[in-house]
């Protein structure tokens, strides 16, 4: 059952659901954040329109700094700007902004403890045709491991907009994970968003538990309750998989875990306590990102069998998003199959 309290997009399961890129949400959110707070400034490394910072640059030319293709310098420059009391957003593709400038982010931003906001666009497999060089599949791991850093991977353009406004208000450095491609819009303007607060989008476990003599989904009905915890562009696929599993008799909870750090421990442990099996889904390596974070949390507190949907220690390659997700076994069908395999255990 979709969570009725979230005011989700009623068309989210329709084939003609609206689509928008996460980067658009960032661009709009940055203008909003800048309107709210005059301390917000923007820096970009020569991809201003591509990461949608051009709307901000047009509206606030005196607060925009074009750094050229200098991601390492841009990160440290923003550190200096933040040390003077401002809230700089730095933007480029995730592979370079978060990837190439990692040490500058670690030392001059996080160790220095200044609130620089890092927007890593074009993350994940879905940047597609650009190929493996440009598909940042390691960025959440790189960012998550640095003390003080917040890591946020919104699920759609509207959530990206809210997340952008929200991170402008936190005292910590933040990493905002964005993507280029069209992504189904799951939320609405009225859907709540709070950093560090995971969202239960779907939960039919109560209904399944109530049905007496229900037909078990498999021979082993004890293993029929499953949580799918997803972030970013994988959340919509997780919802589709969740609905499919529910129709097959599974009790399913689908979580939009938009904040990878700090983790919403109480919500996640509560979710885990209700299920037999946990699937994580991310457009990222299975090591060190969302799946790693959830595994760390559960293994310390409430060990569960898990399946990790993500890229399994491989580089990406050119192709359409659809082809790549299929090739790397990261579709909603792969999530469904993971649950069935477990249940048949």
């Amino acid at each position, binding site marked *: 059952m979709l969570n009725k309290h979230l005011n989700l997009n009623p068309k989210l399961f329709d084939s003609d659901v609206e689509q928008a890129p996460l980067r658009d949400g960032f661009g709009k959110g940055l203008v909003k954040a800048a309107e709210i707070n005059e301390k917000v400034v923007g820096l970009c490394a020569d991809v201003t329109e591509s990461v949608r910072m051009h709307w901000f640059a047009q509206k606030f030319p005196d607060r925009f700094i074009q750094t050229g293709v200098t991601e390492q*310098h841009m990160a440290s*420059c923003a550190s200096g700007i933040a040390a*003077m009391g401002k809230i700089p957003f730095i933007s480029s593709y995730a592979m370079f902004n978060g990837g190439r400038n990692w040490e500058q982010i670690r030392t001059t931003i996080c160790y220095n403890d200044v609130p620089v906001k890092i927007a890593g666009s074009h993350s994940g497999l879905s940047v597609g045709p650009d190929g493996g060089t440009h598909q940042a599949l390691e960025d959440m791991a790189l960012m998550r491991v640095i003390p003080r850093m917040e890591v946020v991977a919104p699920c759609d353009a509207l959530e990206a907009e809210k997340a952008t406004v929200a991170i402008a208000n936190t005292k910590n450095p933040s990493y905002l994970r964005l993507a280029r491609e069209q992504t189904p819009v799951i939320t609405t303007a009225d859907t709540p968003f709070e950093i560090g607060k995971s969202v239960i989008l779907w939960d039919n476990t109560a209904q399944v538990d109530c049905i007496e003599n229900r037909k078990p989904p498999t021979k082993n009905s004890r293993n029929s309750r499953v949580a799918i915890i997803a972030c970013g562009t994988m959340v919509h696929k997780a919802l589709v998989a969740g609905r499919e599993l529910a129709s097959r008799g599974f009790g399913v909870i689908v979580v939009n875990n938009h904040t990878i750090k700090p983790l919403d421990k109480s919500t996640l442990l509560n979710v885990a306590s209700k299920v037999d099996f946990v699937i994580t889904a991310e457009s990222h390596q299975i090591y060190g990102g969302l799946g790693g974070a959830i595994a760390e949390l559960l293994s310390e507190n409430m060990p569960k069998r898990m399946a990790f949907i993500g890229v399994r220690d491989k580089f990406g390659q050119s192709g359409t998003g659809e082809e790549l997700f299929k090739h790397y076994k990261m579709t909603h069908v792969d999530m469904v199959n993971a649950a069935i395999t477990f249940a048949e255990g």
Partner: protein
Amino acid sequence: MLSEAVREILKHKANEIRKDVVRMLAIAGSGHTAGSLGMADVFTLLYFYILKHKPEKPNWEGRDRLILSNGHICPVLYATMAHAGYFDIEELWTLRKFGSRLQGHPHREFLPGIETSSGPLGSGLSQALGMAIADRMDFGNQSGRFFYCIMGDGELNEGQVWEAVLHAGKEKLHNLIAIIDRNDIQIDGYTHEVMPLEPLKDKWESFNWHVQEVDGHDFDALHGAIDLAKNVNNKPSVLIAVTVPGKGVKEIERKPEWHGKPPNKEEARRFLMELEKDF
């Protein structure tokens, strides 16, 4: 020109600072001696004559900012700050010890008066540039604050430095002043062998900086150069301060092997006697 009295005071201070650098490194048992001694005159002039700052109020908004990019020479920064009144000289003996505010490489979170944490080379100029831009955004050219960045010459191997040099030239930041410790040593040897930098002046000039080469131990020359740098409009300025690594202790002067090691107790005693005698 500095007055004779001021010059003598600065010389005396610099010598006291050198002695404390030797003491603190010997007690710590690790750390960087050559660059710390070599830059004592530059730090003394800055903290006792040039910088607008209030040691008793280290976060005073109106202060000039001094960003130490080559953080490994922090012993001279700490010793100078102690002599300037930021904290007690006794605290110098805690350098590199557990619980000390004087970290092996500077950390702004622990010690008020440190503008940026540093150590990993090549990122200080970017941070100073960011501060200078923020200052201009808020005050135009009217704040009266200057942003000094101290860098090593070996550090200029880092690619990020040249990203910042390029950007500062573009922004025409008159309030940004870089000071390069041109001592010709780095960890693996002489900079002219490890990675030649010359023609260094031409390099910076070609990136649209105002460049001055200056004797890093001549207070009058340094003072004149900084004064001129502060009055250059529409360009960032850099001083290539030629220094002698290990300055003041003949047996270690200009020796790359003293880049990253401290004196032992016996050497420290010898070094201190020489600094005492020569002054």
